[in-house]
């Protein structure tokens, strides 16, 4: 009986983690004042290259490194176009989504090579097997649900916390935030804007790539079917950045909320039949409602936060987001 609840919570975490990677990555990008709509494509590229390299080498570290590097390279392309060549960020981002997903299909099913079978990559499979955290994983329900996951789940949370510390507590983070708020002012203080933007957008994109890799590993990586593994999660991440109000700490909670609703699509009936008194009503809610709810909540959060920021005069959104910085305009 309790088992259903545990599995429900466990799967929320499974679902949330790729979103957490992608959201953290996009928050870093947006804090530097760039809006990268290419999350979906960036994740797809990191997923396919990281997965295949990891299988070839039969090693999780290789998979992580290659997915980070491949996606960072996609981030670099975004930088070249928007920072060096001053192209429109929205259009560049959308292009990256299209091309990234196309690269995924080309490499994944298009080349038609005999890719390694994930099942047979014993060391890689062992690398992402669930780890029980001592003591904590013994707690009933919550232990199994939150403290018995694979290493990539914990890594995502660690990254989210580290990024928050970086932004809030280090001078590098402060300079980056300054660039996102007012690049002209940061420039006049001697901050190397181009270097900062390149490095952070590449790092953010690399983190998105690990999110994509996570999805591939979690699903046992088959290239059958006409849909990409990422299948729209990159877009949800862009919405989540707003939902999380550009804070990676909020993103941990925000991704959990998104994961909660999406997992309910599958678990509404099991929960309703197991706990008929308290959750029986779930069975009569159409599944489409659960998939729409996170977006409705995002809109509400946006409205509330914009009312709040109008009153207090400050918002967490980087002021200069989406605007290319051109030094001679200063």
């Amino acid at each position, binding site marked *: 009986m309790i088992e*259903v609840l545990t*599995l429900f919570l466990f*799967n929320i975490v499974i*679902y949330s983690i790729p979103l957490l990677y992608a959201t953290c990555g996009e928050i870093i990008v947006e804090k530097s004042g760039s*809006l990268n*709509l290419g999350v*979906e494509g960036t994740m797809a590229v990191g997923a396919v290259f990281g997965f295949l390299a990891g299988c070839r080498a039969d090693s999780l570290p290789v998979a992580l490194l290659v997915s980070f590097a491949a996606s960072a390279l996609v981030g670099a392309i975004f930088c070249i176009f928007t920072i060096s060549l001053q192209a429109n960020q*929205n259009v560049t981002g959308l292009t990256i989504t299209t091309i990234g*997903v*196309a690269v995924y*299909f*080309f490499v*994944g*099913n*298009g*080349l*038609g090579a005999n890719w390694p*079978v994930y*099942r047979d990559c014993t060391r890689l499979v062992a690398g992402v097997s669930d780890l029980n955290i001592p003591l904590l994983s013994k707690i009933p329900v919550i232990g199994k649900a939150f403290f018995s996951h694979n290493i990539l789940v914990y890594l995502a949370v660690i990254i989210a916390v580290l990024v928050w510390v970086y932004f809030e507590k280090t001078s590098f983070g402060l300079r980056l935030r300054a660039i996102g708020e007012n690049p002209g002012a940061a420039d006049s203080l001697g901050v190397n804007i181009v270097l900062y933007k390149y490095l952070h957008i590449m790092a953010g994109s690399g983190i998105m790539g690990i999110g994509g890799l996570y999805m591939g590993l*979690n*699903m*046992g990586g*088959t*290239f*059958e*079917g*006409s*849909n*990409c*593994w990422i*299948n*729209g*999660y990159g*877009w*949800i991440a*862009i*919405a989540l950045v*707003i939902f999380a109000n550009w804070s990676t700490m909020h993103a941990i909670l925000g991704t959990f909320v998104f994961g909660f609703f*999406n*997992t309910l*699509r*599958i*678990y*509404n*009936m*099991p929960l309703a039949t*197991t706990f008929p008194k308290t959750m029986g009503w779930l069975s009569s809610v159409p*599944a*489409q409602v659960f*998939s729409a709810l996170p*977006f409705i909540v*995002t*809109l509400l959060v*946006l409205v509330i936060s*914009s009312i709040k920021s109008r009153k207090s005069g400050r*918002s967490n*959104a980087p*002021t200069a*987001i*989406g605007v290319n910085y051109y030094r001679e305009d200063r």
Partner: protein
Amino acid sequence: MKKLLSLIVASVVMCAALFTGCGTAASESNAEAGGAGASDFIVGAIYINSQNDNAGYTYAHHQGIVKAMEALGLNTETNLKIRDNVPEDDEQVRTAIEQLAGQGCDIIFGISFGYINAFAEAAEEYPDIVFCHATGYLSNDRNFNNYFGRIYQARYLAGIAAGYKSLEIGNNNIGYVSAWGTEYAETCSGINAFALGARAVNPDAVVHVNEIYTWGDQELERQAAEVLVSTYGCGVIAQHCDSAQPQIVAQEQGVYGCGYNSDMASDAPDAHLTAPVWNWNVYYQLAIETAMNEASAADFFTNIGGNYYGGLNEGMVDISPLTDNNAPEAAEAIELARNLMVSGEWDVFSGTALVFSGEAGSVTVEQVSQALMDNEGNIIVDGGQGSVDDSVIQGSMNYYVDGVVAES
């Protein structure tokens, strides 16, 4: 700032809706092999996705057309004209048809349901070209027909395999991950046929259907299969969705499974029993051959015998080879059921049920008069009455048969 934010949100929500709804596929490779025929017969095809896909719906049709043309000695490089990625929009389909007509096509295939109106109009406008539309319901009595297959017959056979497995492992719970349920006759008839097959072998079997309300989300397909195993204790997982995730889950969880569309044994070597599969080339060869050999396009409808719904008999549908994971009786029972359907003696949705009995080596089948009931206790077909396969072909089937439980 507010303007920008609202722009972002609007575009994100729109894109998310768009991209999660229908994942796009664009992939490369796979060269067409050219036949050596000297015929000047030109085949046209309009695809919803790309001829370069490596899996999925368009891929299956493209392979079917290429295979059929090769069998007929037609060169697939010079004599096959394709319009890829044509959306279900009358105007765009019309343009694609005009282009193919301009390239001298003698027969044009449209593989997606939404091409239906444009095809019906074009058939009147171009009386010298043969038009064939898949999965639709319109036709004229001259140069325009529609075609589809009785995949439910193959589903029934897969159901038998699942039923025997459930007996062998002593677990009556069978799971079924489905993109949609009673909303579409295509998914609903598949579930029903599968359940009837399973219960012909194991009358106590229950088919738990988990709908995910979308095509193509592998994560949801995976979770749905996991729930079927963990919550409902299913020992066999069948599927009607895009990816092999349910089979991979079956493999991981140590249960069994029936795939769909392609032989998924390589995805789940220890779990897979068999999968219903399509052989579209059967129809394409028949259609192209008929059109090639006739004096006038206006004779097509008569010559091909009207609208086409091939089943096991024609080879249009089948199941992938049974793996060693199957229970020992499965192969014999499936052969018996197949023979009854191939000969036309019996069909799935009728008032006659098949009952299998006996050990491996001596499996027998008995035809029993038994009303076809839905899972709310209503009689669909009275005992002994004929098949209602029309409701599958015309798309009106919208109920689950007895033994099916919707779990979502």
